[in-house]
């Protein structure tokens, strides 16, 4: 991957992720649609397939899901890109979390805090569904992979809702199915 980004572009990437950090209610993964809009649709820094595979690599590796942000940054602009996106996504929310935990600990039952929580919960779930859709879309639009991918997605959803099997096994199943050329 070439680091063809100007300092201004890198700064733009960093500040975009700074903003996303504060909007990531319900987890970093819920901002995936907006990351896609900014990095792929608007700036064309990486392709659709690269975007999806960045998230797949992070999912395949151990650790918090938020690391996909580092992989995206790396694919856009190498190590400095990874630093820009990770610092951006972590700084504001870390400061805010530490401050808010201490502040909110005494005010948990107040109407304002409860209205905040109650109001944002449905948005969180809508965003999570949208993220699933954005991740699935490139596979579903590609005619040669559509049915295999759809089968894997449906199997995953079914197994997750009906059993207590660890997601690790499904990730492994996906890898093997892909390796054998079924997807």
């Amino acid at each position: 991957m070439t680091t063809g980004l100007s300092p201004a572009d890198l700064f733009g990437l960093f500040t975009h992720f700074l903003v996303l950090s504060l909007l990531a209610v319900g987890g970093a993964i819920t901002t995936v649609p907006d990351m896609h809009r900014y990095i792929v649709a608007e700036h064309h820094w990486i392709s659709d397939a690269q975007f999806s595979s960045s998230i797949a690599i992070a999912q395949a590796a151990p650790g918090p899901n938020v690391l996909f942000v580092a992989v995206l940054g790396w694919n856009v602009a190498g190590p400095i890109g990874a630093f820009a996106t990770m610092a951006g996504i972590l700084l504001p929310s870390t400061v805010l979390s530490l401050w808010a935990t201490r502040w909110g600990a005494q005010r948990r039952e107040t109407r304002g805090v409860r209205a905040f929580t109650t109001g944002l919960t449905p948005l969180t779930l809508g965003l999570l569904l949208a993220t699933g859709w954005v991740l699935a879309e490139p596979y579903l639009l590609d005619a040669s992979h559509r049915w295999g991918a759809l089968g894997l997605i449906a199997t995953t959803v079914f197994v997750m809702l009906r059993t207590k099997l660890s997601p690790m096994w499904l990730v492994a199943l996906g890898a093997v199915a892909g390796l054998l050329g079924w997807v």
Partner: protein
Amino acid sequence: MSGAAPKEALNVPGSVRELFFAFNRLALQGFGGVLPVAQRELVERLRWLDKEQFVEMLAISQVLPGPNIVNLALMFGDRFFGIRGAMAALAGMLLAPLVIVLALTALYAQFAQLPMVSGALRGMGAVAAGLVISTALKLLGSLRRNAMGLPISLAFAAFTFAATAWLRLPLVWVIVGLGSAAMAVAWARLRE
């Protein structure tokens, strides 16, 4: 908190160092998400939190912006050792996995042309999409207990989905627009 049965005594992390390695250990076990492992380690194995405390921390970390599990680590570390604890838990959880995932990314760039490698990634990507969708579906049930009522909650979830997945509106607008409307409804409903 409604402590009905007498609670068994909980353990306490002995040092910042112990905190670092505990979070390092649980992060490295977390394939496809750390949350289930965090519950098993912090509540069942180390017994640093009871189930109720864990759920409460999780709810707060979900509402706060930022990665959930990262917020949970910060909150947990801060509770025992202040800022130093928060940073130790955060570093423990992120450092080793970050090195691993970036190494994989660099390797992948070398082998991306091999059809088997890109096929495997495609398969894992489809599963990743399925995991996110199933998590969302599982949690939709929790809206039944939302003070706004199920129909209004589901409507807000559906509008949010349509605005981001279909209309591709920038997230800022969605949170500011739909979010403030939802909070206003919640504020009014919480009066009773």
